[in-house]
């Protein structure tokens, strides 16, 4: 049963979704939200990462192990290697907020199924009830953090009179809540990205509504749940700085924000603040530099170019760290400068996309799952940039395809991809002929060709064996294709962000909205 998305311009002719829309934002949100929950529950029936594959299992076992550790050991020992906490076996490597969340979920598991989180004895625990309870921890996190954050964003974003088109609003809710990548990773593969991404959306919404202080607290929470949220840091930093500089007392404003950030961090890190050593202990867990510049196959610059340049052989880890850091900073600099010069809501959203992209493409130790971070601002921009969003999501899906195959999630992958395309093309949709840079630069023939490659790659990857000489040939092709598309997207968005500065352009955009 799906209710899905509705979409449609209420003022013109007969539209399909008027009956869902006329009840107002909350009714639409509840309907779409229930549908999104249904999809999540259905995906969670499928296997998780590392199901039935000892001795290391996968992310599912990691999360379960953290619950086991946090409810059985005192808080000071969570990040410390000891006889009862073997850090080489899925040791905690996320910031304290994740640990607290594991603690709460661990209590929940212990209440219903103590065996699944018993110290030592539960290593590699797999059971019907155990899986169910674990799945429900993600579902509840999603429903309690991500969903309200999306509602908050929608309310704020569509509060401006020029953006009051209801149909767009409904479509936007559907797109945000039914992002196929997020659902696959959280409810299929098994992770808790919904929490940090939910906090991030909350922070974005707070900024859009002018509550900068609340925004910085929410963003710090996101950062303290997953250090990967730092991908957004340049955008938040530059936008808030730009805003402060325009205030009467810039120093005061910056001080206020700085103190609030420090305060939030201190609160979250409180149990570890008793000595420098304990802080360093935790910090060293958060930055696993020993794992190399990239793992597996990820569609970023280092992995894609390693086909030609063997980075790992040519450089030491130290110099690679420096190299990647420099590349990341250089690439996110333009969008930062734009935001400091002229902070604006739209510019901020583009800035989020651009800064997270430069981290994804150039930073050290990137996972294929990190594509979720740039995807988030892209989905916030879905109404402004529908084509870019669709194109990006499709290739983000492809870039995770090898991972999904390993997890045995091909069926939900295909179903979610189809569902995503169906929602984008919901009947009765009002299709503004968008003048987008993609069409301009690519031309429809090239696009068609790329799309063909896209489908062929799926089929080839599923059905054929790579030549023995190059066992990772298909992965490499997939990653290079995705990388090229990601670069196009981020180039386009950087240009767009800078074009926002031109007043003439602004007017044009305004016109389009009215």
């Amino acid at each position, binding site marked *: 049963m799906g*209710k899905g998305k509705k979409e449609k311009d209420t003022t013109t002719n007969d539209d399909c979704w008027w009956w869902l829309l006329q009840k107002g934002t909350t009714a639409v949100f509840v309907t779409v939200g229930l549908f999104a*929950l249904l*999809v999540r529950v*259905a995906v969670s*029936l499928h296997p998780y990462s590392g199901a039935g594959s000892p001795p290391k299992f996968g992310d599912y076992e990691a999360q379960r192990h953290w619950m086991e550790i946090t409810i059985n050991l005192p808080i000071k020992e969570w990040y410390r290697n000891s006889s009862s906490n073997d850090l080489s076996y899925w040791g905690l490597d996320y910031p304290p907020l994740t640990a607290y969340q594991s603690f709460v979920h661990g209590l929940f598991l212990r209440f219903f199924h103590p065996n699944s989180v018993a110290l030592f004895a539960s290593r590699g625990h797999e059971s019907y009830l155990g899986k169910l309870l674990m799945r429900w921890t993600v579902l509840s996190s999603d429903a309690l953090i991500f969903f309200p954050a999306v509602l908050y964003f929608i309310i704020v974003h569509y509060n401006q009179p020029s953006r009051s088109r209801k149909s767009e609003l409904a479509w936007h809710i559907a797109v945000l809540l039914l992002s196929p990548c997020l659902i696959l990773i959280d409810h299929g593969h098994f992770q808790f990205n919904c929490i940090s991404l939910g906090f991030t959306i909350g922070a974005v919404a707070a900024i859009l509504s002018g509550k900068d202080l609340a925004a910085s607290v929410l963003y710090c929470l996101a950062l303290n749940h997953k250090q990967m949220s730092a991908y957004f840091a340049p955008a938040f930093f530059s936008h808030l700085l730009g805003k402060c500089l325009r205030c009467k007392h810039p120093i005061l404003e910056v001080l206020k924000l700085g103190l609030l950030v420090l305060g939030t961090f201190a609160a979250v890190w409180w149990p570890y603040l008793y000595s420098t050593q304990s802080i360093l202990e935790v910090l060293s867990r958060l930055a696993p530099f020993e794992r190399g510049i990239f793992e597996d196959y990820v569609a970023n610059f280092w992995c894609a170019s390693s086909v030609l340049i063997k980075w790992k052989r040519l450089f030491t880890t130290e110099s690679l760290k420096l190299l990647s850091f420099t590349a990341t900073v250089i690439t996110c600099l333009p969008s930062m400068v734009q935001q400091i010069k002229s902070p604006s809501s739209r510019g901020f959203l583009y800035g989020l996309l651009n800064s997270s992209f430069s981290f994804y493409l150039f930073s050290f130790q990137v996972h294929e799952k990190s594509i979720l971070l740039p995807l988030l601002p892209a989905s916030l921009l879905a109404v402004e940039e529908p084509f870019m969003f669709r194109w990006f999501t499709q290739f983000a899906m492809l870039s995770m395809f090898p991972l999904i195959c390993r997890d045995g999630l091909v*069926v*939900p992958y295909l179903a979610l991809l189809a569902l995503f395309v*169906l929602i984008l093309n919901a009947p009765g949709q009002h299709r503004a002929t968008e003048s987008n840079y993609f069409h301009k630069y690519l031309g429809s023939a090239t696009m068609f060709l790329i799309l063909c490659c896209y489908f062929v790659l799926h089929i080839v990857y599923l059905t054929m064996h790579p030549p023995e000489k190059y066992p990772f040939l298909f992965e490499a092709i997939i990653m290079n294709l995705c990388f090229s598309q990601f670069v196009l997207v981020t180039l386009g968005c950087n240009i767009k962000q800078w074009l926002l500065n031109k007043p003439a352009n602004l007017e044009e955009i305004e016109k389009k909205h009215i």
Partner: protein
Amino acid sequence: MGKEKLSFKAVHNSHSPKITVWWFFLVATCIKILLFPSYRSTDFEVHRNWLALTYSLPLYQWYFDETSPWTLDYPPFFAYFERFLSSFAHLIDPQIVHLQEGLNYSSNKVVYFQRVTVILSDLSLLYGVYRLTQNLDSRKQKLIWSLVIWSPMLFIVDHVHFQYNGFLIGILLISLSYLEEGRDLLGGFVFAVLLCFKHLFAVAAPVYFVYLLRHYCWGGIVRGFNRLLIMGGVVTAVFASAFGPFFHLGQIQQVIQRLFPFGRGLCHAYWAPNFWVFYIMSDKGLAFIFRKLGFNVQTPTASFTAGLVGDSSPFSVLPKITPFVTFIMVILALSPCLFKVWKNPQPQMISRWIAYAYTCGFLFGWHVHEKASLHFVIPLAIVAAQTLEDARHYFLLSIVSCYSIFPLLFETQEYPIKILLLLLHSILMWSGFSAQFYGGAETARVPTNSKKKADQFGSEDNSGAATKKGFVIGWIGGIYLIGLVVVEIWGQILHPLVLGDKFAFAPLMLISIYCAFGMMYSWIWQLISIVKSV
């Protein structure tokens, strides 16, 4: 990936109803695919066994084979259908169709294969509902599509529990659509085909018979007789092509025995919420009272909760019910409707009459399954948007009947799924009906809209009174629905907490009894509306 291509096309003519109905279907398909790994009942193995049996054995052994306890007990067309599917199954994995080695086979291949066959066979539902709604205005169309194609009951019964109801009900809808168009011969033909797929649909046969006799065959002795012969010939041909081979082999008695296993008892293991629930309960109540009064009442040896029931009477006080009694009851309940059909056979009423016939069969029939409520809930969806009264009745009925099949999915894993399906369905119905009956006024953008509205409402006061408010079902309905929530909370949480393992059957019994009230209400409502109709 075919879906991908299709939706690209949708971009260009997104207003075409065909594309839209496909969109509804494909969205549902995505969810169905996601439900692949969910719980499946023994019906899954039943159908797998039928695949194996029809593939591996020659026709003359089909109705005799007893390799598995799940013997073939559907009419021949369904067996042919399984034979057709089994040739694909053989290509996918020969073990699926192996009579012995395939027993309880449960690899991903067989699960995916059989689930896909259900999804594909749902195309008949898509076609049926599209045919039935093609002349309606696009708003109603979409409302009906979302009620039928996204029916939570079909998801639960077909795509989790595992059966082919969508396919069969689709055939029924196709037949109804022909009747509504006045193409009676085709309608009768399709219904005969349906009977040869699943004989349980025969409950509506009296209505079909009277309707076709009066609407198709009436008018002049020669013309009428000719038409009677034509119709009779068509129906006979259908039945001959189904049962002919078995008749030829002299097995017809065996086939009939398999199709009508009357040894199974009045009620299914889980009582369908029908009239007999009240009968059993009053028997128990009377026995209790008599015992208190000092009479010696024997406790029956057979039990209702034990599934297969033997010959002994399960009642202690009230008379034993035989299949014949239930048959008479069904006919009696049907008679007012048959009378109406005879008096004035009008095509636009046929959906209601057929739905009413299945309601009677559900309430008074022998060994009724709770799933049988699909047979009238889905056809009623077609007329649910016609008047406010219809909508109110349908709202209540579809929630109650969906809730009554909840016990089918008893594993924890599917618990959120059934709840979410029902909630989503309710909210879709609620916003759909509100918009249909209260929403149009303020916008008034389509002039034809208000005109249509005027003819829709028999009684004007309905439309006027409640404008601008949401869709309301009245306080009795509201309290009844809240009661459902209470029953569910009792069964899921309070009962295990308060009583522990004692009376483990009580929550199920409570659901049956409670839902039976809703079903009785629906029957009475339908009866009254049919009797009152002009």
